[in-house]
């Protein structure tokens, strides 16, 4: 597939198919985690807590991949791996917030307590991530495209050949992300059942 010829970025524009879907996948997984956290708080079923925590774990993994790939890309286009770009800073902040989620979970031993506190924290973390990634970077000038205004992929970013690759690539990465997350969820459920005598309620919570 041909790509537009651009200065500085050159062929590395193809990183768009890899770097950007990492973040999209992260958002998808964090959104899923957010939904399951709300579900846990409403129903109190530990199964939902395992879903939420493993979705967050996988999301953090994808954020690390996105960050690494972005830094590698930036080294050869922006001249340095880290240039205090507003989007980089916002992402770093939300990554730290989610790292704190892991530490919080690691620090609590009681299942119920850990589930409850981390669910609340997760909802706050998600609510913080949205402005940090989607709102604040767009209000200032940034090295990332589409900032300092409305991004809109259709404006200038993506030509039609790149779209033909980009959208299937996003779908593919979504599926990989969800698959890894389900592997981790299955592991989490198994571990829980091994460690506790009782089984988790299979479906629907007890109301």
């Amino acid at each position, binding site marked *: 597939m041909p790509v537009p010829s651009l200065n500085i970025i*050159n062929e*590395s524009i193809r990183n768009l198919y*890899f770097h950007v879907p990492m973040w999209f996948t992260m958002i998808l997984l964090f959104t899923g985690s957010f939904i399951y956290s709300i579900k846990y708080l409403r129903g109190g079923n530990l199964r939902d807590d395992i879903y939420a925590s493993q979705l967050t774990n996988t999301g953090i993994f994808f954020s690390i*991949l996105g960050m690494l790939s972005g830094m590698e890309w930036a*080294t050869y*286009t922006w001249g340095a791996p880290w240039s205090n770009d507003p989007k980089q800073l916002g992402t770093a902040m939300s990554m730290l917030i989610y790292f704190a989620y892991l530490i919080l979970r690691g620090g609590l031993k009681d299942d119920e307590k850990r589930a409850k506190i981390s669910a609340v924290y997760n909802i706050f973390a998600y609510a913080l991530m949205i402005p940090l990634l989607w709102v604040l970077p767009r209000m200032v000038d940034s090295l990332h495209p589409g900032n300092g205004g409305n991004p809109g992929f259709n404006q200038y970013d993506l030509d039609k050949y790149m779209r033909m690759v980009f959208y299937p690539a996003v779908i593919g990465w979504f599926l990989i992300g969800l698959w890894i997350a389900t592997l981790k969820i299955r592991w989490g459920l198994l*571990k829980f059942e091994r460690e506790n005598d009782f089984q988790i309620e299979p479906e629907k919570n007890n109301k």
Partner: protein
Amino acid sequence: MRKVSFASLLLILITAINVQAQTANEPEMARVMRSNGKIYVVVLVLATIFAGIIAYLIRIDRKISKLEKNK
């Protein structure tokens, strides 16, 4: 064994000569990554992501094996 090491020595020498010939021409740095329209940046990113995913899957594999062991 000796043959292999000789071949690798030759390879190293050839690449060294190649690099030297390139540096003589232009001052631009980080040549490999900036050659061919920076396509190797894409290669690097791909390699990173691939390595990351493989490492993560191996970690999951180990965790599952641990569960299987202590039934």
